[in-house]
């Protein structure tokens, strides 16, 4: 896919006097994997929520897959999906039942066949008959990912996709996502605190701090620009810089 899959201009979200996201502009090229980085409270989740239509911006525009998300988000939602360890699937339903329900919700053709396909891809076949609430964190993450891939999304938004996974499972998930992105030509935007993951998976990075994008570029460009060894050091450097508000005072 060529061109920008996401175009954001002047995106702002205020909660009372606090600007959680403050006039953000960015473009995400089609077929790329981009990370949204920043410390806690930087505005990453708020930005993702606005991209998903869960949260209405106070100002600004969002265009996803060529559609204005504020006016026509339902034209786009069938072609995107989302996964986060902080959003659950119903615990009392089996994995198969949950995936079936979401297959129907997304209008997947032959949902049972697609469900089996995704389950095989993510090696969750043996979990299909188990209640979702009985799964381990790692298993839940893989099931949530299966839900996110049911509609074979052109745009995948991931909030900490490997949080609470052991290193082996996390590595497996990263490999799977990279493979999916290549095969489907999909675009992935992820928020993560794992800098190793970001260096490995992402061609672009948007660094957020206090609701603003304070820097952007590829991992190599950022590492070079700040004269550091890796993204972990770049992250710490940016996070520990005095805030704009503190400097003004």
């Amino acid at each position: 896919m060529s061109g920008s899959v996401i175009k954001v201009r002047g995106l702002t979200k205020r909660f009372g006097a606090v600007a959680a996201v403050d006039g953000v502009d960015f473009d995400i090229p089609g077929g790329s994997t981009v990370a949204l980085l920043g410390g806690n409270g930087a505005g990453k989740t708020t930005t993702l929520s606005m991209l998903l239509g869960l949260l209405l911006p106070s100002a600004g525009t969002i265009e996803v897959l060529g559609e204005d998300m504020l006016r026509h988000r339902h034209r786009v939602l069938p072609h995107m999906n989302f996964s986060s360890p902080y959003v659950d699937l119903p615990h009392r339903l089996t994995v198969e039942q949950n995936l079936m329900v979401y297959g129907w919700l997304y209008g997947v053709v032959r949902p049972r066949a697609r469900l089996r396909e995704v389950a095989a891809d993510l090696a969750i076949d043996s979990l299909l008959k188990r209640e979702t609430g009985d799964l381990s964190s790692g298993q839940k993450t893989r099931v949530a990912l299966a839900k996110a891939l049911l509609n074979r999304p052109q745009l995948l938004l991931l909030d900490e996709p490997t949080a609470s996974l052991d290193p082996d499972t996390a590595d497996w998930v990263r490999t799977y996502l990279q493979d999916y992105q290549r095969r489907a030509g999909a675009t992935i935007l992820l928020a993560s605190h794992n800098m190793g993951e970001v260096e490995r998976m992402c061609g672009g990075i948007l660094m957020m701090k206090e609701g603003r994008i304070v820097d952007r570029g590829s991992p190599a460009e950022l590492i070079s620009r700040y004269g550091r060894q890796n993204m972990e050091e770049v992250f710490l450097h940016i996070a520990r810089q005095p805030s704009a508000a503190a400097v003004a005072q």
Partner: protein
Amino acid sequence: MTALPVLSPAAAAAFSAQRVAALVLRHLYLLRGSWTRILELAYWPTMQMILWGFISQFFVTNSTWVAQAAGVLIAAVLLWDVVFRGQLGVSISFLEELWSRNLASLFVSPLRPYEMVLGLLVMSTIRTLIGVVPPALLAIPMYHYSVFSMGLPLLAFFVNLLMMGWGMGLLISGLVMRHGLAAESLAWVAVFALAPLSGIYYPISVLPPWLQYVAWALPSSHVFEGMRAVMFEGVFRYDLLAMAVLLNLFYIALGAGAFLYAFRLARIRGLLLKSGE
């Protein structure tokens, strides 16, 4: 991986019966997997019916009014449970989404808020039928009274009381979306505030004159007066039915409006991601 497309052409349609069915399927799976939930649906209406059945047996020999229509109290308690179960059917189905922190996943899918409303109404109908049909059947061998002997008017009463439950359920669900689980208890108690005004077990004329004006603003008052007209006089009052329908349409529009407004407010305030325990 198979080739695109994986989605049906209706995936982005403004309305999809499949998405409504998906929501219903989710709740049917939940009911199917939990016998305690099914038992809970029928338990209270059955206990109420048994209690009022014995009270009726006592009154038949001690009250000339009840003696004229022996099943009037049983019919009243069963029909009142339609309002309560109808309201719970909407609000509990919605609360299930909050309890399971599923709301965000639902609303990043193509599901539209009005499709959710429709799904909740379908679930309310199913849950109400599960709740009131078993005690209605049980009343036949226990008290030799069949509420079904009312015939077609029963269907009109059932539908109207169910609609009243829908209106209340949507309003309560909207309040829960706006105020979070702190408003959850409304789902269990709100309907009882209307019970004294609905003339379930006595005519509306018993109420003080000023309160009668309030009572006639409720669809349930028209239904229960209509029920007594059928049982005592053998007359079906179309005027009462028409008023009940009109009031129900108004209250459902109000409830749905409140739900959709609360949804928009939740998107402004970021409440959809915060929902849950």
